[in-house]
């Protein structure tokens, strides 16, 4: 069987879901024996490559940069996994949704500065009005809730996908 190509990324999340993925500990060695990680925070890939088998996405879609990356990952990957409550529901990032973006930025960069007050605009992506769950931006094939999902649930999902099956993480999962 061909080696499976996995890409991972985080959008508006805390990286805790990626940490939970690393918390499969030695399991990562087993995964690396069967799969290549072709994109993600642990490897030096330049951009999301074509022909990815499994895209694992953490975090909500919160900025234009998040949206574009999610769309690229979707277009170039066979299966998209929404990893964690932020990707599945919006979770903590969406706590900002009741607040106008402008007042959020002004609180941090104008009121919250003792020198050079001003909202950054040069070379930084604009925020979307709302931080949204992944499935509102792109089609998601597998939802893995949890904040973060337990390592054994992540390992189960990855193992099933590596074997070419669609995982049913059911009993191993819960929100929060």
């Amino acid at each position, binding site marked *: 069987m061909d080696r499976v190509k996995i890409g991972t990324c985080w959008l508006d999340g*805390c990286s805790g879901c990626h940490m939970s993925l*690393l918390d499969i500990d030695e399991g990562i060695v087993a995964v690396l024996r069967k799969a290549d990680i072709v994109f993600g925070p642990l490897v030096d890939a*330049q951009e999301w490559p074509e022909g990815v088998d499994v895209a694992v996405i953490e975090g909500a879609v919160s900025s234009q940069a998040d949206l574009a990356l999610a769309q690229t990952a979707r277009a170039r990957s066979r299966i998209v996994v929404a990893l964690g409550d932020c990707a599945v529901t919006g979770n903590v990032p969406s706590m900002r949704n009741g607040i106008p973006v402008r007042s959020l930025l002004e609180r941090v960069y104008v009121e919250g500065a003792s020198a050079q007050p001003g909202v950054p605009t040069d*070379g930084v992506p604009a*925020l979307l009005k709302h931080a949204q769950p992944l499935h509102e931006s792109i089609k998601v094939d597998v939802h893995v809730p949890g904040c973060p999902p337990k*390592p054994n649930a992540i390992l189960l999902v990855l193992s099933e996908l590596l074997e070419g099956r669609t995982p049913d993480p059911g009993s191993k999962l819960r929100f929060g």
Partner: protein
Amino acid sequence: MTRITIDHVTRIEGHGRITIQLDDMGKVCDARFHVTQIRGFEKFTEGRPYYEMPSITSRICGICPVSHLLASVKACDEIMAVRVPSAAAKLRELLHCAQIVQSHALSFFHLSAPDLLLGMDADPARRNIAGLLEEHPDALRDGIALRKFGQQTIERLARERVHPSWTVPGGVNAPLDPQAREKTLAELPAAAAVVQRTLAMWKKTVDGFPNEIDAFSNFPTMYLGLVGPDGALRLYDGNLRFVGSDGAIVADQIRPQDYASYIGEASLPDSYLKAPYYRPAGYPDGIYRVGPLARLNVADRCGTPDADAELAEFRERYGRIVQSGFHYHYARLIEATYALERMQQLLDDPAILDTKVRAHAGVNSSEGIGVIEAPRGTLIHHYRVDDNGAITWANLIVATGHNNLAIGRGVLQVAQRFVDGNKIQEGALNRVSALVRAYDPCLSCSTHALGLVPLVLELRGPDGQVLDELATP
């Protein structure tokens, strides 16, 4: 400069970005480090009850959630105006040390060892943990084992590895299980052996990077860290100390409650990460650094035998104040030594099993400030509440923020040394990223957002047009 279009930001993860500016001769004349995400925890926590803050703010960062939990519960302790029972303070420090170990293991092994062991110019397709698995399987296994030891200790104490709810305002919500103590004590020697092996290896390897040592943020700055009353290294609790680049103490024994008189924050036009500075010196002259290297520069000593022996050797090799940012790696290993020794001391103390671990109280103060030394440096949580305990104002200053100015200047220094204006070499590019990696910046924390530093580098001509672009994590 022409405006950077969204496409450039989004072709990769787009959380961090570096732009390099060339002069007419094609030489690097400016370089900027941009952080490209913002979440706004300071704003959206307004109105929440203070006791929710630990579990909300730990969602700032999954790499060091324990740091945010602890800074947050310390701020909440002050709002309740309680003294935390001594066993609870010990347990929090123990949890914190376990986190230092796992986070330093992640930084050294999973993130930087591919550069350090496979080489800065190694094939980028293999310059990662898979490449390590092929060429240095023992080092990778050591890294996985050390990180696992830290994470498992956190799980044993707090029941979850990421985002546990065990630490609470007033203490912790359950005493130490004697079995967890036994198991952790039994595993400590193996973890210490990993750190010793790695230090021995690194001491033989480090001087093979003379150019990196020379050009990775190798310039004078002040340093900030927490110290005890005796000037020794402190991670969980202590007072702030600033030292100058010559080792002279600039300000000492500053109570965390007075941080705002010493630390100002500047907004930057091109980054979502603000730049803190030493307030009496103003912006940007008040540049200082935090984190493992800064803590070792700030402290008189570590206060545990093996770490002190390592620190003495480190100072013997590189001087009392070690300036090169490349030595954050070495400093991280010395701190891991300290954290493991400290865990042993804490666990050896029978008082840590005391079952009085939580003080209960309501709102007794309208303000609370919690400061700790997170793996990446000083972390400050500052809350104000109304009479009902609802947050009216919050400010968070995270470790990577303090290093923002130094990372920015370091990027310029390393780009000037390695980047050829006519064509970007991948290895040169990787060195610019490796400089950033040496700081182990947590962009999750830093913008209360994201990421392990995926970067886009752009080379711009004098008129601002983009000449070349390469992306890298």
